[in-house]
């Protein structure tokens, strides 16, 4: 049974890394919008 756990673990790690990357991308876009606002 434990060997089956590899599949959801890999899926979750992939999803988590994708979410972190998306979070950083949105943060960069936000700071870009803020910079333009300041200009």
């Amino acid at each position, binding site marked *: *049974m*434990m060997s*089956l*756990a590899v599949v*959801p*673990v890999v899926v*979750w*790690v992939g999803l*988590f890394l994708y*979410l*972190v990357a*998306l*979070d950083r991308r*949105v*943060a960069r*876009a*936000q*700071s870009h*919008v*803020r910079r*333009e*606002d300041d200009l």
Partner: protein
Amino acid sequence: MTSGEAMRGPTGGRTFPVLLQAAVGALMLAGIVAAFAAEPVRNAAGLPAFTMGGHGAKIVFFHVPCAWLAVLAYLVGAIEAVRYLSTCRRAGRRAQAHDERCAAAMEVGLVFGVLATITGSVFSHNEWGMYWSWDPRQTSIVVVLLLFAAYLVLRGAIEDPMMRARISAAYTLVAVVPAMFMIWVLPRLPQIVTLHGGANQAVVGGGLGPGYRLVMYGLLLPAFVGLFAWLIDLRMRVATVEAGNEDEVVLGGMRVGEVSR
């Protein structure tokens, strides 16, 4: 509203703390491993109480938090709708933030509602022999999903932002009544025959041992709630960027003569 407020959008650029992100990742990972490591459910005679040698019950670790988050999303949406309607007269970033949070909660709620339906269908197939049997609880989740979807359709159909926010908030408050009835009341009526066997049988009096409760309440439920909060925060910040881009599109599409006029 000043153009600065419009460009910054409703949240003003708040971010979900990195420590909380790490906590969500670690709790979910630990929960997945613990769910697979947990002993299979056995009845009093020591025989497997579910299919797959008793392991068939383990899908509740993921199904139940998803279903709870769909309910939580509806409640967050309703609270934000009330907060929007009570502040919308003073049009500003705070009222806009309540509207955006309500929309984000409804979107994320629909996602978790769909996940609850899919995981429930898998359990239904394994334990009861078919993916869908129009059990009262299955019927109620369909109605709740339709209420979520109708919110998004309604929101997408109105262009004026103020009108869209007001009508969406009013819809959320009207729809929360049948949604809560379908989730909390209908499946528990004594005359209703359901395969789920009454109130939250997976958790309350359903035979789950302390180990299962620890995995559910100690690891996976906090992980799912954290994921829910993270997704709402992310959706709000995307709305912030979109608000900025819309401003750019409007300014970019305006001719010089229109600006000077």
